[in-house]
């Protein structure tokens, strides 16, 4: 390759300045090399206070000094560590101030699986672990009957709608407080942290759900942000994390007190099920009836036993006890306005006596009921002035009738 130097071949009247030399070299190099991808291993990584990165890329035979400026490296989720194998795309140039050849990197890709995001994630996970935030012993139980439930999520997302629907169905006796936040995009982590801090300042919450519906790995990335995870871990009230679908596990999931596979599942974990509780109440009611009934039966059996063994002299005391037992049974029945305790042996007998009292039963035996036009029941002779038209209710219907002069 023959380089075309931007210099005259003719002898010069004065020597080149160093700047002229390096600047010429820079122009030659930059013209000769388009943007290229290189593959190498990172070493001597330094992050300047200016935000620019400086490092060396090397392979077995050679190395090149590299710079990656802040405007470019800010797109990466984390810094490379020394020893990391990367692909870098950039341009070769000369850094005149040092007289050094430099590769200015525009894009950097880690060759490891998951790239820089996986590295950033692992780094954040280790930092959280170091601070004890992943310790299972930190996990707090959820309140069994929360009154106020907060949710940090997007107001427009499916997650909020799902949580509202599930809680409306299972346990509609709560206040559900939306804490709106952006859940994806570059500013999502900052906005999530702000919303989490806001939720924490609201003293009435009993439990806090944080999450969003399903999306691409990239969409869920804000929930892998270390600061977001720290904000969740700092919550005063127990937290439930619900991000994406079953298979998505984020840092937020790891630090929350409870991880739910989806927002709907989070809602199910947050509240009990009203129907289930009603069933449980019914079982308690049955238990109450059975236990009280057994208690009375046991007392009755003891009395019967006593009566059979006792002479006349003490019969009156047994009678007194029996009277009290009878009263107790009445009180129990009176207290028991609800079905289950009556449902036992009493039910059939009760149904039978109700049936016996039913007016239809009476009519069936040949009686009938007379009513005037207003529906008033006519009971006495005086209710039947001569000529009065009335209706007679018999067992299978009604017939019209008219009163005649009594004979």
């Amino acid at each position: 390759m023959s380089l075309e130097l931007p210099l005259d071949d003719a002898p010069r009247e004065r020597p080149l300045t160093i700047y002229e030399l390096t600047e010429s070299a820079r122009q030659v190099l930059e013209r000769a090399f388009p943007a290229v991808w290189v593959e190498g291993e990172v070493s001597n990584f330094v992050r300047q206070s200016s935000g620019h990165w400086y490092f060396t890329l090397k392979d077995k035979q050679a190395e090149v000094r590299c710079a990656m400026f802040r405007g470019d490296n800010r797109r990466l989720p984390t810094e490379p560590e020394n020893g990391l194998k990367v692909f870098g795309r950039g341009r070769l140039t000369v850094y005149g101030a040092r007289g050094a050849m430099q590769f200015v990197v525009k894009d950097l890709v880690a060759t490891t699986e998951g790239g820089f995001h996986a590295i950033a994630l692992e780094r954040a996970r280790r930092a959280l672990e170091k601070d004890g935030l992943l310790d299972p012993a930190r996990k707090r139980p959820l309140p069994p009957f929360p009154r106020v439930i907060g949710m940090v999520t997007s107001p427009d997302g499916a997650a909020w709608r799902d949580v509202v629907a599930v809680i409306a169905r299972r346990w509609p006796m709560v206040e559900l407080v939306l804490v709106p936040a952006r859940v994806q995009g570059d500013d999502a982590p900052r906005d999530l942290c702000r919303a989490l801090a806001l939720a924490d300042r609201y003293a009435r919450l009993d439990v806090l759900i944080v999450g969003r519906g399903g999306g691409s790995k990239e969409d869920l990335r804000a929930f892998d942000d270390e600061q977001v995870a720290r904000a969740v871990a700092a919550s005063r009230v127990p937290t439930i994390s619900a991000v994406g679908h079953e298979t998505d596990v984020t840092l937020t999931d790891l630090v929350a007190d409870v991880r739910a596979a989806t927002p709907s599942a989070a809602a199910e974990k947050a509240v009990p099920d009203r129907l289930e509780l009603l069933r449980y109440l019914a079982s308690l009611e049955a238990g109450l009836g059975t236990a009280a009934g057994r208690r009375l039966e046991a007392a009755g059996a003891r009395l019967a036993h006593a009566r059979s063994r006792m002479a006349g002299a003490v019969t009156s005391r047994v009678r007194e006890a029996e009277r009290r037992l009878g009263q107790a049974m009445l009180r129990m029945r009176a207290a028991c306005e609800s079905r289950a305790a009556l449902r036992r042996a009493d039910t059939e007998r009760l149904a039978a006596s109700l049936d016996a009292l039913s007016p239809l039963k009476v009519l069936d035996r040949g009686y009938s009921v007379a009513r005037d036009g207003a529906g008033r029941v006519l009971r006495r002779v005086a209710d039947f002035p001569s000529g009065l038209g009335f209706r007679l209710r018999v067992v299978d219907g009604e017939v019209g009738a008219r009163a005649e002069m009594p004979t």
Partner: protein
Amino acid sequence: MSTPRGTTPEGPTPSLQADLARLEAIVRALEAQDVDLDQALALFEEGVGRLRDARERLAAAELRLKQLREAAGGGAEVDDQAGGPGA
């Protein structure tokens, strides 16, 4: 602005929790059979009352939707949110 962790203002739900705990205790006491008849009946009557209260609490329910926002002075305030579960 800050409430100690774990405290909640008095409300209907703690009573539901109390009702349930008391009901369970009553059933256990009745099953243990070491209470006398009058006590057993008093427990039974109380149990029936607690059951009724618990059911009433579960029946009188309406989901309330709110939205939290920053308040002046750095606090947090809720607004009623339009649109219930059906919206």
